[in-house]
């Protein structure tokens, strides 16, 4: 196998997963993850995010399809593929009675690496766990246990790191620490794939976004492109005099009146070269509608996400 830096580090091809009970968790998933990027996989609960991650990592068998990780087929060359991957699971699964140091040593050995105390010390120090190295995991707080899981995932020096809802239930400080660490990992060349419920974090962190819903990957896009393509801008005009309805002459404009009648909201496509704002303002003036303030706003990734998962199938194509 030869390493090609421009080739995707993970390539998911036609993956389906149907459980024994008949439930189809994944439907024909095709996805490429670029080497060195932070990829955010978003989707509502039960969308198939964890199933997809579990299949890539070897925890769950796919019904059909293939996955290449770091150049290796995850089934045929599972040893090489899995050696490249670290996984931080969603749930706090830990060996409660073990010490932090012992569980890290176990993880490194399990993944086929010789003992390296200096490296493990660095991992623990980076995660502010060094002082806890001799503590039993059961004695740690939830946030600390989460750090231990990250340390375990990093113990064998993976080039791909999966973070499945890593900040669920952790405090703000730890969350910020984690995202700092993710950025550092990316800077060192690690590819990071994360799922999160905090969409603002994906907005802040990710290079690319994938949205999965009901087992289908409905969009994969560069974050900036996604927000430009699917985002909307709004111009809010605070009226000098409240209105009860929009004049019929302005029906051709994408205008909405707020409930209290004190503001008009004009929605326009951020992709359009010509927003026609000046034309709208002239039309308002012509009809004697005066305003005392105006502001523009842009849809967040969360707005885009909500609209994506609620729009009918095929609407994107």
């Amino acid at each position, binding site marked *: 196998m030869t390493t090609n830096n421009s080739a995707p580090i993970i390539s998911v091809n036609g993956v389906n997963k149907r459980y024994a009970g008949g439930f189809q968790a994944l439907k024909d998933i095709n996805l490429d993850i670029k080497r060195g990027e932070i990829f955010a996989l978003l989707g509502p609960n039960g969308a198939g995010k964890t199933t997809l991650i579990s299949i890539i990592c070897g*925890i769950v068998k796919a019904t059909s399809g293939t996955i290449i990780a770091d150049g290796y087929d995850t089934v045929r060359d599972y040893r090489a593929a*899995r050696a490249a991957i670290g*996984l931080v699971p969603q749930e706090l*699964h830990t060996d409660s009675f073990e010490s932090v140091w012992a569980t890290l040593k176990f993880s490194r050995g*399990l993944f086929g690496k*010789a003992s390296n105390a200096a490296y493990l010390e660095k991992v623990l120090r980076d995660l502010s766990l060094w002082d806890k190295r001799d503590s039993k995991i059961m004695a740690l707080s939830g946030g600390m246990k989460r750090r231990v899981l990250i340390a375990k995932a990093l113990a064998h020096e993976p080039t791909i790191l999966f973070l499945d809802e890593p900040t669920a239930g952790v405090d703000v400080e730890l969350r910020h620490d984690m995202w700092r660490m993710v950025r550092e990992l990316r800077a060192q060349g690690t590819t990071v794939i994360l799922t999160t419920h905090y969409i603002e974090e994906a907005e802040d962190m990710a290079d690319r976004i994938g949205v999965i819903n009901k087992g289908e990957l409905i969009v994969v896009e560069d974050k900036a492109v996604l927000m430009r393509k699917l985002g909307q801008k709004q111009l809010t005009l605070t009226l000098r005099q409240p209105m009860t309805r929009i004049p019929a002459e302005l029906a051709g404009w994408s205008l909405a009146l707020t409930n209290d009648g004190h503001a008009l909201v004009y929605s326009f496509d951020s992709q359009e070269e010509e927003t026609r704002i000046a034309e709208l303002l002239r039309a308002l003036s012509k009809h004697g509608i005066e305003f005392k303030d105006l502001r523009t706003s842009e849809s967040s990734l969360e707005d885009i996400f909500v609209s994506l998962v609620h729009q009918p199938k095929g609407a994107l194509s």
Partner: protein
Amino acid sequence: MNIYGIRAIYHFEMARTFRTLWASIAAPVLTTSLYFIVFGKAIGSRMGDIDSISYGAFIIPGLVMLNLLNESISNASFGIYMPRWSGTIYELLSAPISWVEVLMGYVGAAATKSVILGLLILGTARIFVPYEIAHPLWMIAFLLLTAVTFSLFGFIIGLWADNFQKLQVVPMLIVTPLTFLGGAFYSINMLPPLWQKITLFNPVVYLISGFRWSFYGVADVHIGESIGMTFGFLVICLTFVWWVFKTGYKIRN
């Protein structure tokens, strides 16, 4: 081969034993000592020899086997059930390690613990009862073979069980009664003819008989049958484990 992976599992499991030394080692040794005191000394002194062997010495192979079977099963079943129960099995499933290597780690550790315990019980027995080992190499071979076979059996139980009760059901309700009825405390030749025939359906009879033969050169059934039955059970366990890993039964689905 992922040698580091095998070692990691093996050391992890052995560390668990040393962490729970009283429950893992001291308790079975103490219990067996009580057997020797009650059956070997107090009651045994009033009983006649069996096959020219003092009663105290006669029960040694049976008691070792009783502990060996139970400890092998419980060590291996607990070893693989705990990660399933706590959820840490995700790490095992996502690691670059084959199931043969996983087996080597878990079964190797469980069998090691059982053999250590068996040898400790033999050492303890020496305090209470004088005995000779006629075929020491065969004794070691039986000890190892039985420990590995029943550790494999325990591993299967650990995969099958979905609660702690199920984990205990097979050792408590099947293996212990079969051992007690398998000639641990008596020769099956002492039973009425009909019961002698029925007893031959108990696989533990062959294990205890073979193990006792390695000590005293006398057996309830032919030594060849004992070896054959032990290997037969090993093959059955290996076949089942192979099927489990091939299908991902209760693991990857």
